[in-house]
């Protein structure tokens, strides 16, 4: 599903993001990428949805070589990958419904499909009764659930979550992790970037540990080691 072959990302003048990272994530896997701050976890996530381009190596997602993806192809890639961020990245001037619908609107989805899909995903994240609220009228956990709902509207094969619990308390963080696990059960490959030890240990899924931009361990049913 996701293939990294000797991928390096060097930022000018000579700052290493990640270095010679090779990994293979199979369809339906739930993989946690862990490591301390500045070890390249977010760089790896950004490479997945083409916010960054690799300096060296090759990246494939679902057989699509995105190593040198062209600018006009990036929106197409992002419509096929769900992305969840630590700071939710919701449009503050749009309601919950509109935020979720926006991801479909940019793809040119017809109105009847939007009317059908949006309430469905809002039900999954249990926010159907708050569809008319604006992000600033929601708690952090609710905002993150909106972001997850938005990432699900395209029924993506891959969901990338970059520190999704970073701004949440334990209770909300657990809810989000349970939601991600549920999404994974439906068959979506989930790549979770986190430094939340408890959450990773609770999951007992594959854990890839990054240290100084390199993979230091890759364990099938791992725990947070650092």
């Amino acid at each position, binding site marked *: 599903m996701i293939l990294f072959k000797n991928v390096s990302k060097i930022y000018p003048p000579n700052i290493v993001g990640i270095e010679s990272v090779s990994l293979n994530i199979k369809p339906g896997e739930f993989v946690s990428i862990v490591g301390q701050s500045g070890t390249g976890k977010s760089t790896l996530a950004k490479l997945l949805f083409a916010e960054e381009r690799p300096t060296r190596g090759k990246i494939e997602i679902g057989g699509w070589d995105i190593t040198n993806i062209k600018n006009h192809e990036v929106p197409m890639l*992002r419509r096929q990958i769900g992305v969840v961020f630590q700071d939710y990245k919701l449009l503050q*001037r749009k309601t919950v419904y509109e935020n979720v619908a926006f991801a479909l609107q*940019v793809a040119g989805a017809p109105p009847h499909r939007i009317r059908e899909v949006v309430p469905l995903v809002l039900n999954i994240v249990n926010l159907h009764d708050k569809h008319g609220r604006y992000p600033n009228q929601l708690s952090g956990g609710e905002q993150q659930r909106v972001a997850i709902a938005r990432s699900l509207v395209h029924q993506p094969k891959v969901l990338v979550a970059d520190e999704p619990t970073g701004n949440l308390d334990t209770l909300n963080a657990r809810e989000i992790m349970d939601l991600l696990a549920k999404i994974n059960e439906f068959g979506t490959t989930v790549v979770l970037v986190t430094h939340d030890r408890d959450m990773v240990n609770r999951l007992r899924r594959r854990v890839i540990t990054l240290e100084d931009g390199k993979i230091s361990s890759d364990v099938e049913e791992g725990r947070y080691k650092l």
Partner: protein
Amino acid sequence: MFISTYRVTKFAFQNFWRNFWLSVITITMLVMTLLTVNILIILNFVTNQAIQTIEDRVEISVYFHGSAPQTTIDNAVDYLRSLSQVKDVQTVSAQESLDRFILIHKQDEAIVASLEEIGGNPFGPSLIVKAQNVSDFDFILKALENPKFSDSIRQKDFSNYSDVVTRIKNTTDRVRTFGVALSVIFLLIAILIVFNTVRMSIFIHREEIGIMKLVGASDRFVRAPFFLEMILLSLISIFVILLIVYPLIAIFEPKFGFFIGGESIGLVNYFEQNGLMIFGLEFVGLVLLTLFSTGLAMRKYLKV
């Protein structure tokens, strides 16, 4: 295509209403800029009208001897009228000159008595010559030295005014140059204000632009509502400026008349006749400027 257009339009209007105060600030800045441009147009018009009025009042009076034959005078008139530098030639007969003189000085007994003493008409026929431009008077004066009629000319009174005319010409030239320089400076300031207003507006939306890109929006889909919103803001600004400028010129027109001796300066009339062109051009200019500024300001935030 239809769905995209509908969504872009909807987002543009949503942006406008949901960022109402930002829209108000942007419109205010655009209106201030347009006001500056229109004040410049008004000042240029008033200055030109004032200069024109002054120039129209400068004329050469050519006095012929009383014995000058009518054919010589007619030749002089025909010749002068054939010159492209001459705007108008008015003929005043000897009798008309006398009648005017009497009318002006009828209260002055000494002058009336002097005229009676002389007995006949001391005045000869005369011509009043107006030039197209103040600078043409030198040429016309030389033309009056034509031997066909120069001997019949008793006096040309322009020499008395030549200094005044030179001074007026220098002053009006300076006013015009100053006006052009002032217009250029104010236009540059106006362009900078619009450019920075748009940049500020886009800067406030920078995070939103990045989010749109991250959820899969194409550059075109992100840009289009902002472009449309700018067109909408420009249109509203033009309507606001129309509501300001027309009453303003109607109020100030009589006051401008003071500069040209109380006559109507024709400012309202000028805007009525050229309003569509003036405000149309201002709208087109404003739209082009805001679109260019928006495109340039957004470029940085679209690189996500």
